[in-house]
Protein backbone atom coordinates (compact mmCIF):
# COMPACT_ATOMS: atom_id res chain seq x y z
CA UNK A 1 0.00 0.00 0.00
CA UNK A 2 2.75 2.43 0.98
CA UNK A 3 4.59 1.52 -2.19
CA UNK A 4 1.52 2.32 -4.26
CA UNK A 5 1.14 5.70 -2.55
CA UNK A 6 4.84 6.40 -3.05
CA UNK A 7 4.71 5.62 -6.75
CA UNK A 8 1.72 7.86 -7.41
CA UNK A 9 3.21 10.59 -5.22
CA UNK A 10 6.29 10.45 -7.44
CA UNK A 11 4.12 10.56 -10.57
CA UNK A 12 2.28 13.59 -9.22
CA UNK A 13 5.53 15.28 -8.25
CA UNK A 14 7.52 14.88 -11.43
CA UNK A 15 4.99 15.48 -14.16
CA UNK A 16 4.90 19.11 -15.14
CA UNK A 17 2.15 20.39 -17.35
CA UNK A 18 -0.41 18.01 -15.90
CA UNK A 19 -2.76 15.54 -17.55
CA UNK A 20 -1.26 14.02 -20.65
CA UNK A 21 2.31 14.47 -19.45
CA UNK A 22 1.55 11.99 -16.66
CA UNK A 23 0.34 9.15 -18.89
CA UNK A 24 3.70 7.82 -20.13
CA UNK A 25 5.09 8.04 -16.58
CA UNK A 26 2.16 6.09 -15.14
CA UNK A 27 2.52 3.51 -17.90
CA UNK A 28 6.21 3.00 -17.17
CA UNK A 29 5.60 2.44 -13.45
CA UNK A 30 2.48 0.28 -13.71
CA UNK A 31 3.06 -1.74 -16.88
CA UNK A 32 6.81 -1.94 -17.37
CA UNK A 33 8.46 -1.72 -13.96
CA UNK A 34 5.93 -3.35 -11.64
CA UNK A 35 3.92 -5.41 -14.15
CA UNK A 36 0.66 -4.74 -12.31
CA UNK A 37 -1.23 -4.51 -15.59
CA UNK A 38 -0.75 -5.63 -19.16
CA UNK A 39 -0.28 -3.06 -21.90
CA UNK A 40 -3.77 -3.82 -23.27
CA UNK A 41 -5.40 -3.44 -19.87
CA UNK A 42 -3.66 -0.11 -19.41
CA UNK A 43 -4.89 1.15 -22.78
CA UNK A 44 -8.46 0.22 -21.82
CA UNK A 45 -8.10 2.07 -18.54
CA UNK A 46 -6.70 5.08 -20.35
CA UNK A 47 -9.53 5.16 -22.89
CA UNK A 48 -12.08 5.04 -20.10
CA UNK A 49 -10.26 7.71 -18.08
CA UNK A 50 -10.37 10.00 -21.10
CA UNK A 51 -14.12 9.53 -21.44
CA UNK A 52 -14.79 10.76 -17.91
CA UNK A 53 -14.89 14.35 -16.73
CA UNK A 54 -12.22 15.68 -14.41
CA UNK A 55 -8.43 15.66 -14.41
CA UNK A 56 -7.07 12.75 -16.50
CA UNK A 57 -4.37 11.90 -13.95
CA UNK A 58 -6.95 11.59 -11.16
CA UNK A 59 -9.18 9.32 -13.25
CA UNK A 60 -6.29 7.11 -14.34
CA UNK A 61 -4.86 6.84 -10.81
CA UNK A 62 -8.28 5.92 -9.39
CA UNK A 63 -8.82 3.19 -12.02
CA UNK A 64 -5.36 1.71 -11.53
CA UNK A 65 -5.72 1.79 -7.74
CA UNK A 66 -9.09 0.04 -7.87
CA UNK A 67 -7.73 -2.65 -10.18
CA UNK A 68 -4.94 -3.43 -7.75
CA UNK A 69 -6.47 -3.01 -4.29
CA UNK A 70 -10.19 -2.19 -4.72
CA UNK A 71 -11.59 0.94 -3.06
CA UNK A 72 -8.71 1.42 -0.66
CA UNK A 73 -6.24 1.31 -3.53
CA UNK A 74 -8.31 3.86 -5.43
CA UNK A 75 -8.22 6.28 -2.50
CA UNK A 76 -4.47 5.79 -1.95
CA UNK A 77 -3.54 6.32 -5.62
CA UNK A 78 -5.82 9.33 -6.02
CA UNK A 79 -4.38 10.98 -2.89
CA UNK A 80 -0.82 10.20 -3.94
CA UNK A 81 -1.31 11.88 -7.32
CA UNK A 82 -2.86 15.05 -5.93
CA UNK A 83 -0.74 15.51 -2.79
CA UNK A 84 2.45 16.94 -4.39
CA UNK A 85 0.73 19.67 -6.37
CA UNK A 86 -1.49 20.47 -3.39
CA UNK A 87 1.54 21.03 -1.14
CA UNK A 88 3.50 22.98 -3.75
CA UNK A 89 0.62 25.33 -4.55
CA UNK A 90 0.00 25.90 -0.84
CA UNK A 91 3.60 27.03 -0.42
CA UNK A 92 3.45 29.26 -3.50
CA UNK A 93 0.12 30.78 -2.51
CA UNK A 94 1.37 31.66 0.96
CA UNK A 95 4.52 33.31 -0.42
CA UNK A 96 3.06 34.99 -3.49
CA UNK A 97 0.75 37.28 -1.53
CA UNK A 98 3.80 39.05 -0.08
CA UNK A 99 5.76 38.93 -3.33
CA UNK A 100 3.02 40.74 -5.23
CA UNK A 101 4.32 44.04 -3.79
CA UNK A 102 7.75 43.51 -5.32
CA UNK A 103 8.12 45.62 -8.53
CA UNK A 104 10.30 42.99 -10.22
CA UNK A 105 7.72 40.28 -9.56
CA UNK A 106 5.01 42.56 -10.94
CA UNK A 107 7.00 43.12 -14.15
CA UNK A 108 7.75 39.42 -14.47
CA UNK A 109 4.05 38.58 -14.28
CA UNK A 110 3.19 41.38 -16.70
CA UNK A 111 5.37 39.54 -19.21
CA UNK A 112 3.88 36.16 -18.42
CA UNK A 113 0.18 37.12 -18.72
CA UNK A 114 0.04 37.72 -22.49
CA UNK A 115 2.17 34.58 -22.95
CA UNK A 116 -0.60 32.57 -21.27
CA UNK A 117 -3.00 33.67 -24.04
CA UNK A 118 -0.60 32.35 -26.68
CA UNK A 119 -0.12 29.16 -24.69
CA UNK A 120 -3.84 28.44 -24.49
CA UNK A 121 -4.26 29.00 -28.23
CA UNK A 122 -1.54 26.43 -28.97
CA UNK A 123 -3.81 23.82 -27.34
CA UNK A 124 -6.40 24.53 -30.05
CA UNK A 125 -3.88 23.45 -32.68
CA UNK A 126 -2.94 20.29 -30.82
CA UNK A 127 -6.57 19.26 -30.39
CA UNK A 128 -7.45 19.83 -34.03
CA UNK A 129 -6.00 16.45 -34.99
CA UNK A 130 -8.59 14.44 -33.07
CA UNK A 131 -11.56 16.04 -34.82
CA UNK A 132 -13.01 14.98 -38.16
CA UNK A 133 -13.49 17.72 -40.72
CA UNK A 134 -17.24 17.84 -41.08
CA UNK A 135 -19.97 20.44 -41.03
CA UNK A 136 -21.15 18.88 -37.77
CA UNK A 137 -17.78 19.58 -36.11
CA UNK A 138 -17.74 23.15 -37.40
CA UNK A 139 -21.23 23.76 -36.02
CA UNK A 140 -20.12 22.42 -32.62
CA UNK A 141 -17.02 24.65 -32.56
CA UNK A 142 -19.03 27.74 -33.52
CA UNK A 143 -21.76 26.86 -31.02
CA UNK A 144 -19.18 26.75 -28.21
CA UNK A 145 -17.57 30.04 -29.24
CA UNK A 146 -20.93 31.78 -29.62
CA UNK A 147 -22.34 30.60 -26.28
CA UNK A 148 -19.25 31.00 -24.09
CA UNK A 149 -16.97 33.44 -25.93
CA UNK A 150 -19.65 35.88 -27.08
CA UNK A 151 -22.77 35.34 -24.94
CA UNK A 152 -20.76 34.45 -21.80
CA UNK A 153 -23.15 31.62 -20.93
CA UNK A 154 -22.13 28.75 -18.71
CA UNK A 155 -19.89 26.18 -20.42
CA UNK A 156 -22.04 23.50 -18.77
CA UNK A 157 -24.76 24.21 -21.36
CA UNK A 158 -22.27 23.75 -24.19
CA UNK A 159 -20.97 20.46 -22.76
CA UNK A 160 -24.50 19.05 -22.37
CA UNK A 161 -25.67 20.16 -25.82
CA UNK A 162 -22.49 18.83 -27.45
CA UNK A 163 -22.71 15.44 -25.73
CA UNK A 164 -26.38 14.97 -26.72
CA UNK A 165 -25.74 16.18 -30.28
CA UNK A 166 -22.94 13.65 -30.59
CA UNK A 167 -25.17 10.78 -29.54
CA UNK A 168 -28.45 11.76 -31.22
CA UNK A 169 -27.65 14.07 -34.14
CA UNK A 170 -24.20 13.02 -35.36
CA UNK A 171 -25.28 9.50 -36.50
CA UNK A 172 -27.93 11.07 -38.74
CA UNK A 173 -25.75 13.66 -40.42
CA UNK A 174 -24.74 13.04 -44.00
CA UNK A 175 -22.19 15.86 -44.11
CA UNK A 176 -19.20 13.77 -43.18
CA UNK A 177 -16.12 14.31 -45.29
Amino acid at each position, binding site marked *: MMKLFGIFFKIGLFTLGGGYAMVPVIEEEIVEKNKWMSEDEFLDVLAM*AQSLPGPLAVNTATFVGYRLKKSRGAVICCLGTVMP*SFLIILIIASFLTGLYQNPLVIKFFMGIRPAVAGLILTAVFKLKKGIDASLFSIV*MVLMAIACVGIMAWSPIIVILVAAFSGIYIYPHTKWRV
Partner: protein
Amino acid sequence: MAIIIEIFWTFFKIGAFSFGGGYAMIPFIQREIVSVHQWLPKEEFIDVLAISQVTPGPIATNASTYVGYKIAGLLGAFAGTSGVIGAAFLLALFISGRFEKVKHLPQIKLMFKGLRPAVLGLIFSAGLTVGFATVTSYKELGIACFSFVSIVKFKMHPILTIAISGCMGLILF
Protein backbone atom coordinates in the same frame (compact mmCIF):
# COMPACT_ATOMS: atom_id res chain seq x y z
CA MET B 1 -18.44 27.43 7.12
CA ALA B 2 -20.81 28.51 4.36
CA ILE B 3 -17.87 29.74 2.30
CA ILE B 4 -16.10 26.38 2.67
CA ILE B 5 -19.15 24.56 1.34
CA GLU B 6 -19.47 27.08 -1.48
CA ILE B 7 -15.82 26.55 -2.46
CA PHE B 8 -16.28 22.77 -2.40
CA TRP B 9 -19.51 22.87 -4.43
CA THR B 10 -18.15 25.32 -7.02
CA PHE B 11 -15.09 23.17 -7.69
CA PHE B 12 -17.16 19.99 -7.62
CA LYS B 13 -19.23 21.42 -10.49
CA ILE B 14 -16.08 22.46 -12.33
CA GLY B 15 -14.66 18.95 -11.99
CA ALA B 16 -17.91 17.25 -12.96
CA PHE B 17 -18.36 19.10 -16.26
CA SER B 18 -14.77 19.27 -17.46
CA PHE B 19 -14.06 17.00 -20.40
CA GLY B 20 -10.88 16.94 -22.39
CA GLY B 21 -8.44 17.67 -19.57
CA GLY B 22 -6.21 20.62 -18.80
CA TYR B 23 -7.04 23.61 -20.92
CA ALA B 24 -10.64 22.59 -21.46
CA MET B 25 -11.29 23.46 -17.83
CA ILE B 26 -10.11 27.04 -18.14
CA PRO B 27 -13.40 28.60 -19.35
CA PHE B 28 -15.28 26.87 -16.50
CA ILE B 29 -12.83 27.88 -13.82
CA GLN B 30 -12.53 31.41 -15.15
CA ARG B 31 -16.28 31.93 -15.30
CA GLU B 32 -16.92 30.60 -11.80
CA ILE B 33 -13.97 32.24 -10.08
CA VAL B 34 -13.61 35.56 -11.87
CA SER B 35 -17.14 36.37 -13.11
CA VAL B 36 -19.64 34.57 -10.86
CA HIS B 37 -17.96 34.55 -7.44
CA GLN B 38 -15.32 37.25 -8.01
CA TRP B 39 -12.89 35.35 -5.83
CA LEU B 40 -9.88 36.48 -7.87
CA PRO B 41 -9.29 39.46 -10.19
CA LYS B 42 -8.73 38.48 -13.83
CA GLU B 43 -4.98 39.23 -13.68
CA GLU B 44 -4.38 37.00 -10.69
CA PHE B 45 -6.38 34.20 -12.31
CA ILE B 46 -4.09 34.38 -15.34
CA ASP B 47 -1.07 34.30 -13.01
CA VAL B 48 -2.46 31.10 -11.48
CA LEU B 49 -2.68 29.59 -14.97
CA ALA B 50 0.97 30.48 -15.54
CA ILE B 51 1.98 29.03 -12.16
CA SER B 52 0.10 25.82 -12.99
CA GLN B 53 2.22 25.46 -16.11
CA VAL B 54 5.49 25.55 -14.19
CA THR B 55 4.44 23.41 -11.22
CA PRO B 56 3.47 19.72 -11.29
CA GLY B 57 -0.12 18.57 -11.31
CA PRO B 58 -3.31 19.21 -13.26
CA ILE B 59 -4.27 22.87 -13.88
CA ALA B 60 -7.66 22.38 -12.29
CA THR B 61 -6.31 21.00 -9.03
CA ASN B 62 -3.64 23.70 -8.85
CA ALA B 63 -6.21 26.44 -9.44
CA SER B 64 -8.59 24.96 -6.87
CA THR B 65 -5.87 24.74 -4.22
CA TYR B 66 -4.71 28.29 -4.88
CA VAL B 67 -8.16 29.85 -4.93
CA GLY B 68 -9.31 27.88 -1.88
CA TYR B 69 -6.25 29.00 0.06
CA LYS B 70 -6.69 32.65 -0.96
CA ILE B 71 -10.30 32.77 0.22
CA ALA B 72 -10.34 30.59 3.29
CA GLY B 73 -6.82 29.43 4.16
CA LEU B 74 -5.85 25.79 4.57
CA LEU B 75 -9.40 24.56 4.99
CA GLY B 76 -10.41 26.40 1.82
CA ALA B 77 -7.50 24.84 -0.10
CA PHE B 78 -8.63 21.44 1.10
CA ALA B 79 -12.27 22.10 0.15
CA GLY B 80 -11.34 23.32 -3.34
CA THR B 81 -9.01 20.43 -4.11
CA SER B 82 -11.30 17.70 -2.81
CA GLY B 83 -14.18 19.33 -4.69
CA VAL B 84 -12.44 19.39 -8.05
CA ILE B 85 -11.32 15.77 -7.85
CA GLY B 86 -14.52 14.60 -6.10
CA ALA B 87 -16.68 13.95 -9.14
CA ALA B 88 -13.83 12.39 -11.13
CA PHE B 89 -12.91 10.12 -8.24
CA LEU B 90 -16.49 8.96 -7.49
CA LEU B 91 -17.28 8.34 -11.15
CA ALA B 92 -14.03 6.45 -11.74
CA LEU B 93 -14.68 4.37 -8.62
CA PHE B 94 -18.24 3.62 -9.73
CA ILE B 95 -17.18 2.55 -13.21
CA SER B 96 -14.17 0.53 -11.98
CA GLY B 97 -16.50 -2.15 -10.64
CA ARG B 98 -18.41 -2.33 -13.94
CA PHE B 99 -15.49 -1.82 -16.25
CA GLU B 100 -16.12 -4.69 -18.67
CA LYS B 101 -19.76 -3.75 -19.19
CA VAL B 102 -19.14 -0.07 -19.83
CA LYS B 103 -16.03 -0.47 -21.95
CA HIS B 104 -17.69 -0.94 -25.31
CA LEU B 105 -20.74 1.31 -25.07
CA PRO B 106 -21.11 2.94 -28.51
CA GLN B 107 -22.69 6.04 -26.96
CA ILE B 108 -19.38 7.06 -25.39
CA LYS B 109 -17.66 7.23 -28.78
CA LEU B 110 -20.54 9.20 -30.26
CA MET B 111 -20.67 11.57 -27.33
CA PHE B 112 -17.08 12.52 -28.08
CA LYS B 113 -17.93 13.31 -31.70
CA GLY B 114 -19.84 16.24 -30.26
CA LEU B 115 -17.67 16.99 -27.23
CA ARG B 116 -14.30 17.24 -28.97
CA PRO B 117 -15.12 20.11 -31.34
CA ALA B 118 -17.08 21.88 -28.59
CA VAL B 119 -14.09 21.64 -26.24
CA LEU B 120 -11.94 23.11 -29.00
CA GLY B 121 -14.35 26.05 -29.23
CA LEU B 122 -14.24 26.47 -25.44
CA ILE B 123 -10.45 26.56 -25.38
CA PHE B 124 -10.39 29.02 -28.28
CA SER B 125 -12.78 31.27 -26.33
CA ALA B 126 -10.55 31.00 -23.25
CA GLY B 127 -7.50 32.01 -25.29
CA LEU B 128 -9.32 35.02 -26.72
CA THR B 129 -10.67 36.09 -23.33
CA VAL B 130 -7.21 35.97 -21.77
CA GLY B 131 -5.83 37.75 -24.84
CA PHE B 132 -8.33 40.60 -24.66
CA ALA B 133 -7.69 40.96 -20.92
CA THR B 134 -3.91 41.11 -21.18
CA VAL B 135 -2.97 42.61 -24.54
CA THR B 136 -3.18 46.38 -24.16
CA SER B 137 -0.25 47.46 -26.35
CA TYR B 138 2.07 46.14 -29.06
CA LYS B 139 4.49 44.94 -26.34
CA GLU B 140 1.99 42.45 -24.94
CA LEU B 141 0.93 41.48 -28.45
CA GLY B 142 4.57 40.70 -29.23
CA ILE B 143 4.89 38.48 -26.16
CA ALA B 144 1.63 36.66 -26.94
CA CYS B 145 2.80 36.00 -30.52
CA PHE B 146 6.23 34.89 -29.27
CA SER B 147 4.64 32.38 -26.90
CA PHE B 148 2.35 30.97 -29.61
CA VAL B 149 5.02 30.70 -32.31
CA SER B 150 7.76 29.36 -30.00
CA ILE B 151 5.56 26.43 -29.00
CA VAL B 152 3.77 25.65 -32.28
CA LYS B 153 6.64 26.28 -34.69
CA PHE B 154 9.79 25.72 -32.63
CA LYS B 155 8.39 23.09 -30.22
CA MET B 156 9.77 24.99 -27.25
CA HIS B 157 8.82 23.63 -23.82
CA PRO B 158 6.03 25.74 -22.26
CA ILE B 159 8.08 26.23 -19.09
CA LEU B 160 10.91 27.79 -21.09
CA THR B 161 8.44 29.96 -22.99
CA ILE B 162 6.97 31.25 -19.73
CA ALA B 163 10.41 31.93 -18.24
CA ILE B 164 11.48 33.89 -21.34
CA SER B 165 8.20 35.83 -21.39
CA GLY B 166 8.70 36.79 -17.74
CA CYS B 167 12.19 38.07 -18.55
CA MET B 168 10.78 40.03 -21.50
CA GLY B 169 8.39 41.59 -18.99
CA LEU B 170 11.33 42.66 -16.80
CA ILE B 171 12.94 44.37 -19.78
CA LEU B 172 9.88 45.86 -21.50
CA PHE B 173 7.78 47.21 -18.61
